[in-house]
């Protein structure tokens, strides 16, 4: 199944998602709303469960190894790979584990945009999102992460569908 190729969203090498955030600001301004200024993503409240999960996933290093597999699968996926056109793989391979690390209270610095900002204009469907979840599961299988640990991570990421799914 060949998905229609989307026009390139960014120039290669530019910081990804910046153009999107900018577009969102402009759009919000045009609509007369409060401009959605890019806000730094702050760490959510976490506890011992998140700490244990962060350990089980091999801390930042383990997350980095997982992201290496995951990002490669994302970019080459015939279903949803087109969403990532023009984004440098190296950038994603840093941003994704930084973001997850932050969510699990691992204390990493994440300098990317929020999930809402970075996916605002992509018109990602529920079907697209589920495909992404499946690729993450495949990647965790490839990294031999136990199924119970996988589910705990997914449970913390799945609610983000509300910020990511745009149609």
């Amino acid at each position, binding site marked *: *199944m060949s998905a229609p190729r989307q026009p390139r969203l960014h120039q290669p090498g530019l910081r990804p998602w910046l153009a999107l955030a900018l577009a969102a600001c402009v759009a919000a301004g045009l609509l007369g709303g409060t401009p959605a200024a890019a806000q730094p993503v702050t760490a959510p409240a976490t506890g011992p469960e998140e700490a244990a999960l962060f350990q089980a996933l091999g801390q930042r290093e383990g997350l980095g190894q997982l992201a290496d597999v995951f990002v490669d699968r994302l970019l080459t996926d015939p279903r949803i790979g087109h969403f990532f056109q023009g984004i440098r793989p190296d950038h994603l391979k840093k941003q994704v584990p930084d973001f997850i690390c932050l969510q699990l209270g691992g204390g990493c610095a994440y300098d990317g945009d929020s999930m809402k900002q970075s996916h605002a204009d992509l018109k990602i469907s529920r*079907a697209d999102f589920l495909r992404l979840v499946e690729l993450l599961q495949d990647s965790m*299988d490839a990294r031999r992460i136990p*199924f119970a640990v996988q*589910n705990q991570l997914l*449970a913390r990421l799945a609610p983000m569908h509300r910020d990511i799914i745009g149609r």
Partner: protein
Amino acid sequence: MRLHTPPPPHRRGRRRAAGLLALLLLAAPATHAATDKLLLTGGVSSIDGAAGGGLTPWAVTGSYGSSGQWGATAFRTTVVTQDHRLQEFGVAVAWNETLELSLAQQDFHTGATGTALGLPGLRLRQDILGLKWQLAGDAVLDSDRAMPALALGVLARQLDAGGLAPTLQALGARRHGVDVYLSATKLLLAQGILVNGTLRATQANQNGLLGFGSSKRSAHSLMPEISLAWLARRDLALGVEWRRKPDNLNPSILGAGLREDDWADVFVAWAPGKHVSITAAWVDLGRIVPAVHPRRQTGAYLSLQVAL
């Protein structure tokens, strides 16, 4: 002359069901082989044809069709207990994880019970047309909220009781019945546990195989049903179910001879891929016409589902 007699009622029913089946398949444009939903999150084909567990419909839609997609499933189920055998097949189409239309045909072989009633070879046939609307919530992705997925469903049933029809008529049991149910389904994602609760308003005697209601009680009864499943792996679920049933034919002219019990099962569902799933279960169907066979009917349930 045989050639000039109209086909027996069950043949007419079969023909009508076959027509409906063709309509269902036509309604699902096969343009997208929808495989976007996560493995097993569409449940399996329940005994009434709607997606769910083995005995109970869940607030999920069958197939792997997700947002804006069509999906279709077909299934074949066999239940074998000490004295009876149920053979069944059916199809379902689902759209947008919102609507599901299902059709199931049950063929119940009464075995020695039929013979004891003077009706050797008696088979009870039931067609079940189902419509389910998933009206709120998300069973899978809202893992930070307690709100389950909710679905409202209707199951329109028609029984062809063959030679038993006059007896059922004498008992005041009708040949048609409608179930209305509300299901709430939640996947506790972090724990890998799925919980379903269903409330079903039904008049069905033995799930419709002995007609609907009786001369003593014709109203719908509100019956609770519960399913619990543990995802052992992405492709493997183990669970238990319990389903309460009305007891409209007890007492009857046969005393407690038509008493019925709740149903329960323990199941394993395995999906080696997104196009096939196999469900095996141990079922307890309680007593079925205890006037003839006082023992509980327990046995094996085996179901094969293919998804498009």
